[in-house]
């Protein structure tokens, strides 16, 4: 028997140390490439980490500019994600009502997923102007599909016995949807929302690249820094945009966990 405190600290060590080692190895490799592989003239291709920290994170002017861009992109991503969730769920609910509806519409949901949205982006600009609305629309188009498929899957996986129970007691379509299908679909739907959360950030950044009216998003800044060869700021901007994706993914996951934790297996503690 080991002492519980000791065991807990051992668990902490086995959890924290390996990713730390990977991070250290990563930074070491980064330094090696910056200083040993690249000559001083080429160093802008991969500036060493301390330069990125100094120019991108510690310079107030630069940091403010990047954070402003990040906020603008966050607004677009969150708006896009919310709209995608609402419409995606409505779409899934509609398709869950009858086989023929699903058969009629599902192929187009797949098409939406497979057409390169980037190719559509210029068109969207022509139709809806190059501002906030278009940026959100790109976001919605990119993150809609996982919401639709996962919610539909959840709605259709409802236990047959429970459906019988509802039918036995004369439940109408609406009651069955509200009291049975939607709650049952929640875990699967949230898995879809999480994927959509990551995609919505990608959508927002793609939108930033193309639509340049109004407050510049972080994608626009990435493009500017690229053209100026300002790689320290470029790296910082990339770091923050990844962080945005992670945070949004985590927030949606947290809400999902809270929503189903009292009853669903997925919310059980895993060790």
């Amino acid at each position: 028997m080991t002492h519980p405190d000791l065991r807990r600290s051992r668990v902490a060590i086995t959890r924290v140390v390996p990713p730390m080692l990977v991070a250290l190895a990563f930074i070491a490799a980064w330094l090696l490439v910056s200083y040993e592989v690249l000559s001083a003239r080429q160093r802008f291709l991969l500036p060493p980490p301390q330069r990125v920290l100094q120019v991108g994170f510690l310079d107030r002017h630069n940091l403010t500019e990047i954070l402003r861009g990040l906020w603008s992109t966050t607004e677009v991503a969150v708006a896009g994600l919310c709209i995608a969730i609402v419409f995606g769920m409505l779409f899934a609910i509609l398709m869950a009502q009858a086989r023929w509806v699903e058969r009629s519409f599902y192929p187009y949901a797949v098409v939406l997923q497979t057409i390169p949205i980037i190719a559509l982006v210029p068109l969207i600009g022509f139709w809806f102007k190059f501002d906030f609305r278009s940026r959100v629309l790109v976001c919605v188009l990119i993150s809609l599909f996982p919401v639709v498929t996962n919610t539909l899957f959840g709605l259709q996986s409802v236990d047959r016995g429970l459906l019988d129970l509802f039918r036995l007691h004369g439940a109408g379509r609406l009651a069955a949807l509200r009291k049975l299908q939607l709650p049952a679909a929640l875990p699967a739907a949230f898995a879809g929302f999480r994927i959509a959360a990551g995609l919505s950030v990608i959508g927002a950044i793609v939108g930033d690249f193309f639509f340049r009216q109004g407050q510049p998003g972080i994608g626009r800044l990435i493009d500017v820094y690229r053209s100026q060869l300002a790689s320290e700021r470029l790296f910082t901007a990339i770091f923050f945009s990844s962080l945005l994706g992670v945070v949004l993914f985590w927030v949606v996951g947290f809400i999902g966990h809270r929503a189903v934790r009292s009853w669903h297996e997925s919310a059980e503690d895993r060790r």
Partner: protein
Amino acid sequence: MTFPDGTDAIAELDLAVTAGEFVAVVGPSGCGKSTLLRIASGLTTPTSGTVEIRGTQVGYVFQDATLLPWRTVLGNFEVPAELRTAPKAQRRAQAQQAIELVGLRGFEQHHPRRLSGGMRMRVSLARALTLDPELFLFDEPFGALDEITRERLQDEVLQLFERKRFAGLFVTHSVFEAAFLASRVVVMSTRPGRIVGEVEVPFAYPRPPSLRFEPHFAEVAGSISALLRRPQR
């Protein structure tokens, strides 16, 4: 009863269950026992033939407990009345009654996930009771439970029957379960299902749990088993 894919589930079947009578249906797997219940409850419309039910409330205990996992035990008890849009106060009162009846006090706020398989089945049983049904249908409800739990639940069903005197139709593949619970056992053949025989169970209610181990009980069970094994046609 013929399914769209052409499967004949039940051939000819004429069965009457009167109030205060407990009929068990035994038969091999796939003989259409469950289909019989689905037809009796109106969940499935028969290809031909009719169903007549006197009284309005039908209680149905499914093979699985079929509880809503996101609702507590109390919340699950309210489902039938809620779907029939009974007023809230009435629902609450019925749910409380059901809890008392099957001795689940203290578990009202538990989610089904935290209950054992036997407990879940008891909740399911009590839920069917909330509407005070005149006809009670059981679709092999204890098939997935262990022996000890199964016997305990059988005792409970008997107690409920002795108190409520509903018309009971209990489908099972266990000869002993049928003989222990029912006043009449109907034996069905393999698909397409038809009635191959009936056995009157001569034991009066209330029946003690020890009845299971009496020689006379074994004889009755044996006669049902013989009907099941008799070569058909």
